[in-house]
């Protein structure tokens, strides 16, 4: 069952990510991306990282994709179809992809990973909450706070960048 589910999710991820970069309708691309993200969260569930999976669903699938769709709607007509990609770039992308996939996969396969033998740590909210806000060993208070500042900064930056300027030069 688990095995089957893994291959199902994997198949969804691969197929829809491929579709998402090849489709000529932008809104479809966003939806395909959504499927990929959801399938990924499925993988997280299978790996028993429920919190991670939930974050993935809410933040990624719920937040970022919606943001992307909004911006698509702001900038495109629904019926807009892309032109075919530039041939040089296509060749470049496919070449780099093939070589890269080949290289990484051969490397992965030639390397023997040693599975950890330690007992699994239960990943419940208490553990995550404690670690996220602890200052001791395995504590992540500093990155946590930094991330919050970063998010604030990004928010302000996004507003500053995107807001209409008052001078004539930036009139649409």
């Amino acid at each position: 069952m688990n095995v089957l589910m893994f291959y199902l999710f994997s198949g969804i991820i691969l197929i829809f990510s491929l579709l998402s970069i090849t489709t000529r309708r932008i809104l479809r691309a966003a939806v395909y991306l959504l499927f990929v993200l959801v399938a990924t969260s499925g993988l997280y569930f299978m790996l028993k990282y429920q919190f991670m999976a939930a974050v993935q669903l809410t933040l990624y699938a719920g937040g970022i994709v919606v943001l992307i769709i909004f911006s698509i709607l702001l900038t495109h007509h629904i019926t807009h179809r892309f032109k075919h990609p530039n041939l040089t770039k296509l060749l470049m992308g496919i070449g780099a992809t093939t070589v890269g996939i080949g290289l990484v996969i051969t490397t992965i396969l030639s390397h023997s990973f040693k599975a950890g033998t330690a007992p699994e740590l239960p990943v419940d909210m208490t553990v995550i909450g404690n670690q996220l806000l602890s200052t001791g060993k395995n504590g992540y208070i500093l990155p946590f706070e930094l991330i919050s500042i970063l998010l604030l900064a990004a928010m302000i930056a996004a507003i500053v960048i995107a807001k209409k300027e008052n001078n004539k030069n930036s009139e649409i």
Partner: protein
Amino acid sequence: MTGYTYTIFIILIPLVMFLVTGLLGMKWKPIVSGILGTIGMGIAWTLSLITAGSYFFGTHGAEGFQAIIPFEIKWLQFTETLIIKMGILLDPISVMMLVVVTTISFMVHIYSLGYMKGEGGFARFYSFLSLFTFAMLGLVIATNIFQMYIFWELVGVSSFLLIGFYYQKPSAVAAAKKAFIVTRFADLGFLIGILILSFVTGTFDFAKLTEPGTTIFASAASMSFMGISAMTWAMTLMFIGGAGKSAMFPLHIWLPDAMEGPTPVSALIHAATMVVAGVFLVARMFPVIHFQAPATQEIIAYVGGFTSLFAAVIAITQYDIKRILAFSTLSQLGYMMLSLGVSGYGGEEGLGYMASMFHLFTHAMFKALLFLGAGSIIHAVHSNLMQDMGGLRKYLPITHITFLIACLAISGIPPFAGFFSKDEILVAALEHNKLLFAVEYIVAGLTAFYMFRLYFGVFWGKDQHYHHTPHESPMTMAIPLMFLAFMSIFSGFLPFHNLITSDKMGFETHTDLMVAIPSVLIGVLGIAMAWILYKKESVVPAKMAKSWGILYTATYNKFYFDEIYLFVTRKIIFNYISRPIAWFDRHIIDAFMVGIGLVTEKVSYQIKGMQSGQLQHYAFAFVAGTLAIALSMIYLLM
């Protein structure tokens, strides 16, 4: 030995006069510089005469006249042994040259007071004259070959300055340049000769070089280059230096042009003193040349002989009176060189050496006289060309008489000075080389002919249309003429054979009638032909000229040597060496250097295009680069 310390003043007085008149002369009235220079020269002349008197006629040992060095300082040290010194060397030839130089120079100083009167740059003229006299005196009393070279160069430059005295006249400037560059070229030979000689012997000193039985040449025997021994190279190269200064063929071309200078300068430099520097150099190095480089001595003899014939032939066809005298000087210098070339060493064998010095002395007197006389004529008629002259004996009596004396002296008519010295040369030539004797014999006749062609053409014939009646020169000009005429008559009786000999020992000479009578006869024959052809205005010379055709034209144009040299320098060196090099430098080497810069700029302009602004290109470059690094690290380096 130290009794001659005062000789240093002979050198220093002209130097001081040069500095004083050169730096302050323009602030004074011109005549002050002239008088000052003349007085200084007079003192130097007196001192020279005193030196000569006490050197030649004072007491000296049984081993002949010894070289005396009354003064010497170290000037520059090259190596432990090679040291340039500045000093004074008194031996028979240098003392004789002291007398010659100061005498002629003094006479020219006096003469110029009249001749140069009213010319611009009077003070400059006198300061250059003093500079020249200083340099020439330094040359003759040099104690070592390098000191000689130093003054040799100074003489060259003062000659340049004096030839170019009328610096606003392009022909004078060109002549000055030519004189300097040709002699400079020859000096290069001199310099390399010195380098070889000093390397072989490890010394510059004449005393060591000319010492009889010296061993410093021991190492020379093993050295040779291109099959010719080192000493032959050295001496031949040095002779090239001497030939340049003495205007031997084929380096003679500057001397006729040098007549662009003021006439007193021609008399001083280009007749009596500087041009004999080459002869003096050969005489100075005579023992070395004779013993170490006999091949060079042969060359000297033949070059001398050829030059004398060559110049005499050209002299016949010229019309510029100063040029005739210049070619005559060449011819006489050829005599002197030839005489040294055929001379042996010691006693009677050294007759040629003695004769050469004797002729140098007498020639200085009568050639200076001829030039000063010519100056007097030019002063009177304001032209250099024979066509503009004629019948001048009525107007210029003193000049006429003195000129006649000089002509007789140079033609070798007894009892004038030239007869004795020329006779000795002919005897020396006869003893060693019949061919050269024959040449000199012919030249003696030619000399008489062209000198009297000049004499008759100028003083006889009919009057030309002069702008104003020619008048005799002032006393300042006449006195030197008379003095030199006196010397031209009587200097032949000086007992040179007792005083100036190759090994410093006197010997007895006797006039060889078998040589003397034919030589006088051919002289008289030459005079007679000139009398017939030029005494009266006649058409014969023109007809003769026409009948000789090309040969005459070639001779008149000095066998086109000027043109050949001009071709070589202008066309070949300037156009085909210098110009391509200049072009090469600008267009190849510099272009290459600039090219490096341009290529850098071009390449950077090109690769700038890679910064296309296309984000995806950058991304691809990033990914591809990462992959390439990863690949190379995994598969190549491991």
